[in-house]
């Protein structure tokens, strides 16, 4: 079976700064994977490389068996970090979702009835139908995440990429969003996301990729979230508390204990 995401001996740099070299990584279709790693580890650059918005110095990136720059428009669903969104921009939830369809060849500015129906159907499925005509600033954090998720899904992509979908939302919203992604994955969509939340990955995602200037390890959370691999990824002591099928990841030395020492 061909990979949904395939990086073959890829090297990437920002001007004269090398971010990672000779990276080979394959994500099979139908996978639900999370990329974790410390700040500055190159996670976002890896995501941009996969999305084709950052040029590779060497190597080849293929998505859905095609070179990323040759992919037809709308093949990938993408949800940016919500922190990067201008919330004062004058658009409603419906207009945000419709943007996902802007890559079609139709030149007229207004949507067709079919496009509008598609948006309404998706909004109903994601539970944001009631706020379709609200301005984006007037909805909750969870609804915002769902609005951008709807925009990413409106083209029925086979691959969905999310940049920090759990950042800046409360634990309940985080749980809801990850469950929703899990349901979408069950429908056959390959999902790749970056996150800082190891516990969310441990409890919701079947596959984890540890990244720090290169691939440290990848596999099922229970195999990957070991003291050795996490210390290698984050460079500090990390404690893993296991309780049955669940586990909790924490910094090994709380600040108040460090101060006493």
């Amino acid at each position, binding site marked *: 079976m061909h990979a949904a995401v395939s990086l073959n001996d890829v090297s990437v740099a920002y001007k004269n700064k090398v971010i990672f070299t000779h990276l080979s990584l394959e994500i099979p279709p139908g996978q639900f994977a999370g990329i974790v790693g410390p700040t500055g580890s190159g996670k976002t650059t890896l995501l941009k490389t996969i999305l084709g918005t950052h040029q590779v110095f060497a190597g080849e990136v293929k998505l859905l068996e095609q070179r990323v720059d040759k*992919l037809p428009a709308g093949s990938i669903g993408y949800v940016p970090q919500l922190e990067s*969104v201008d919330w004062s*921009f*004058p*658009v409603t939830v419906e207009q945000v979702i419709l*943007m996902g369809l802007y890559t079609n060849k139709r030149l007229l500015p207004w949507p067709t009835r079919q496009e509008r129906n598609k948006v309404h159907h998706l909004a109903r499925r994601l539970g944001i139908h009631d706020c379709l005509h609200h301005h984006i600033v007037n909805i909750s954090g969870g609804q915002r995440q769902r609005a951008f998720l709807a925009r990413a899904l409106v083209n029925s992509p086979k691959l969905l990429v999310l940049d920090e979908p759990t950042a800046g939302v409360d634990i309940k919203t985080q749980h809801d969003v990850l469950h929703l992604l899990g349901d979408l994955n069950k429908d056959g969509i390959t999902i790749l996301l970056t996150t800082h939340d190891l516990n969310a990955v441990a409890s919701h995602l079947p596959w984890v990729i540890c990244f720090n200037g290169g691939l440290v390890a990848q596999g099922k959370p229970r195999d990957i979230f070991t003291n050795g691999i996490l210390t290698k990824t984050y460079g500090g002591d990390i404690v893993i508390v296991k309780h049955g099928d669940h586990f909790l990841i924490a910094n090994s030395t709380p600040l108040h204990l460090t101060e006493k020492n």
Partner: protein
Amino acid sequence: MDILLEPLAYEFFRHSLMASLMVGALCGLIGVYIVLRGMSYIGHGLSHAAFGGAVVGFTLNLNFYIGAGAMGLLAAILINQVTKGGKIKSDAAIGIVTTAFFALGVAIISRVRKFTQSFEAALFGNILGVTNEDLIVIATVTALTLALVFLLYKPLLFSTFDPDAARVFGIPTGVVQLAFSFILTLAIIASMNIVGVTMIAATLVIPAITARMMTDSFSRMLIYSTIIGAVMGLVGMYLSYFFNAASGATIVLFGASLFCLVLLFNYLKERFVLHEHIHRHGEVIHSHPHGPRHEQYEVSQAEGDRRNER
């Protein structure tokens, strides 16, 4: 009514009224994208660069529009390139590129003194000296801009709102940006002889921010801003005639007054129609908005509070 028809007897007024109406609508339309991209001073900068270009063009015996257009477009492309790396922000890039081009024009004028008089119109606007050639240029640019904004509505909106995502979704953001720089430069060149280099930023920004305060919808903001721009041009021209004041200044002053009115209206609406205050429902003390649009909410909230009390 006669008082409004009286100035139309003069050909110069009819010309300037048509010019200011079109320039107002044009700047109102383009201004929406400028304001939402956080580039409010691009108009100010590009018109300065175009002024430098007009002077250079004059020394080379070129038409005003050719010199101004070439230098304006070059400045827009340079600003794009300088900001691409992310290290230099657009305000700084506008400051460097356009001031350098303006300085070139000033340097040439100061070397050859006879230019000074000819370029006053470009600096302060010369709406009363609008020629047929000016009207044709303005009408062509307005029609072209309307057509491009209509045809590029979707890619322009997506790349203005979320440029990174637009690129991932397959929008050719580089081409869209270039097309926008092109129509922006054309709009500024067509407008600078009318409102003047010194006033152009206001004619671009005022209609857009006034429209922004009136709606949360992008398409409505485009329509409102275009209408406000046209009304600014129309009323500003009449004010200029009746008060015998510089037309660029009366257009901008009328626009600024309109903006203040909308600002005041919004304040009063929030303060007295939709207002929020702390109050009590039984033992529950809370705060939420009051007013016609919130009556439903208020009733259901009060109902909920009563249920909670029980």
